[in-house]
């Protein structure tokens, strides 16, 4: 195995770093690298060159798009950044008339709605996924899971329309007056009940995140090997203990990935949120206050802006981009170290043979 590594790393088809973590039994990757090094690389004929050019062309287009995305947005936002300096992020005053551009309130509202949405979506999502993959009989769980998977594809504008025309009146008439009557909790819900506001925006985000969360968590729970479950059962665990001690820990990285993905979506959701959050530009004092997230600010302010104000709106996009990139990269770094640890679960394709081989 060791002698082939030198050739493997020199190029050719195959997976990169995974080769090292593969069990000793499957040397196929190494073999492929070896063969590839001998055959593919030494015999690069003209046909291969055209192919290489096409492939590299695609990659270059992709890289060019990514680079130009960052560069063009930062470029257009630069005048506003120069104009406002650090107060662009830390100031809470957004007043185009006096040319004061501070995104502080938008950042607070973005984090608030996303956080509240996650607070609602994570427990419900994980518990739903557990119910679907572990508890419900398959006859019932199958169709329900499929339905929820399909709902993950519902366009956000449809959710937004439903929230605007159906939920806003319901919240104004029933939900918000009810919340204002609950002792202690009601201090979070002071102010006028308009229907629109931070609370409804968070609910909408939660509804949008739920199907994705459930679908991805379910896949992660499914991926925990039968052997792990059987081991926990053999130790005398009840069904719940198997779930709690074997399945959820085994699916942990998958669940974290689901949360990260949902969070990224919620941070960047603009249209649906702009429909229901109300558009207030001062710091919220209650969850019923109206607000403006980074995304909804762009939707609301972009068309009627010009000059330095337009640059400032594009600056909001850059801030939003930074937030989602940090969330994404952070999520990936969070998940990655666990992947390479020794006791990590076997990958699904390696589980299958043990499951099928059991009868023998």
């Amino acid at each position, binding site marked *: 195995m060791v002698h082939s590594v030198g050739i493997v790393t020199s190029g050719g088809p195959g997976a990169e770093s995974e080769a090292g973590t593969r069990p000793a039994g499957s040397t196929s990757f190494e073999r492929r690298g070896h063969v590839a090094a001998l055959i593919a690389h030494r015999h690069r004929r003209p046909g291969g060159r055209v192919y290489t050019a096409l492939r590299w062309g695609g990659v270059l287009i992709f890289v060019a798009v*990514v680079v130009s*995305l960052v560069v063009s947005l930062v470029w257009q936002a630069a005048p506003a950044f120069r104009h406002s300096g650090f107060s662009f992020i830390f100031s809470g005053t957004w007043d185009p008339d006096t040319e004061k551009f501070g995104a502080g309130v938008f950042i607070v509202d973005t984090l608030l709605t996303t956080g509240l949405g996650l607070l609602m979506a994570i427990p*419900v999502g994980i518990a739903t996924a557990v119910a679907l993959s572990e*508890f419900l009989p398959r006859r019932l769980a199958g169709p*329900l899971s499929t339905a929820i998977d399909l709902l993950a594809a*519902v366009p956000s504008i449809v959710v937004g329309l439903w929230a605007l025309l159906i939920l806003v009146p319901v919240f104004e008439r029933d939900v918000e007056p009810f919340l204002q009557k609950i002792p202690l909790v009601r201090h979070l819900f002071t102010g006028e009940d308009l229907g629109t506001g931070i609370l409804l925006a968070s609910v909408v985000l939660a509804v949008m995140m739920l199907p994705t969360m459930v679908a991805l968590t379910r896949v992660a729970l499914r991926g925990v090997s039968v052997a792990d479950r059987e081991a926990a059962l053999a130790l005398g665990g009840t069904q719940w203990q198997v779930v709690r001690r074997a399945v959820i820990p085994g699916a942990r990285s998958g669940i974290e990935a689901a949360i990260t993905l949902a969070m990224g979506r919620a941070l960047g959701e603009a*249209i649906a949120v702009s*429909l229901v959050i109300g558009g207030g530009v001062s710091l919220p004092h209650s969850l019923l206050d109206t607000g403006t997230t980074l995304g909804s600010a762009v939707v609301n302010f972009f068309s009627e802006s010009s000059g330095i104000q337009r640059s400032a709106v594009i600056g909001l996009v850059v801030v939003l981009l930074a937030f989602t990139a940090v969330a994404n990269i952070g999520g*990936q770094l969070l998940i990655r170290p666990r992947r390479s640890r020794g006791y990590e679960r076997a990958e699904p394709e390696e589980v299958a043979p043990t499951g099928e081989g059991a009868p023998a």
Partner: protein
Amino acid sequence: MTLTSEPSTHDPSELLSPASVERRRDVVRQASRSSLRRRRLLGNATRAVCYVALCIALVPLAALVGYTVDRGVQGLSWGFFTQVPAPYGVPGGGIANAIVGTLIIVGLAAVMAIPVGLAVALFLVERRGRVAAAIRFVADVMSGIPSIAIGIYAYALIVVPLGPSGYAGITGSFALAVLMVPIIVRADEVAMRAVPDDLWDAALALGARRSRVARSVVLRNALPGIVTGNLLGVARAVGETAPLLFTIFGSQFLETNPFKPMQAMPLTIYTDGTQADAHLQSVAWATALVLLVFVLVLSIGARTIASYATRHAR
């Protein structure tokens, strides 16, 4: 612990006397029973919690679909699919402009995104090392970029230099393509990785060029997965509003020239749904229903192909 309270004796025969064995057996039985009862109770409680969560999750999702279908069906008619919007205040009219616009815009986006996605995925599957790892990382980060940012990017890149003539269907297509590429890359790569190593080995050992391997072995075997992934990418793009909001401008006429301003279904929902006018709102609901059906058909098609392929792979 209870076991140690047994009068300790060093006489083995005393320990093995039937009475003593029975006594100890009882202790164990009781302990295990009460433990099992406690654990079962906990298990049932958590199971109930999970079922309640399932209901909490299903209610809003069912309400969302239910209301869309209920309100949407009321606005549907044959003319809704064949006519352009009626002038304000005039009853009737349809969304033919938006349906045609969505088909053209998304179609062009797919034409732009699928080849690039395929090329990048092939690159990632064949190459190893830092370049591939970096590109995979970038693709992962790209797939999380907010769609509104992509819309503003397309505006900054195309509409700003070109002026008003930059407002065109094709600009929206470009934005949607940027949105789709990372999704397609991931799906294609997963599909290609599922091609058995032995097939690669065999093809390479026969002296096939890599282009030949890619065409005859990788693409052929990964095709169902690739089609599924691309369809899901298209389904995602069909429903996006934010990339189109500042790029296609909208049009009340049946426009088939992608270099002119066009209408799309998400845009119709956005502009009509936010009006305080009963007729326009009903148009928005009906459009939402049509869009929902579009997206669901694409998703179900993708899943059908995937399940068909896995069944026939064995």
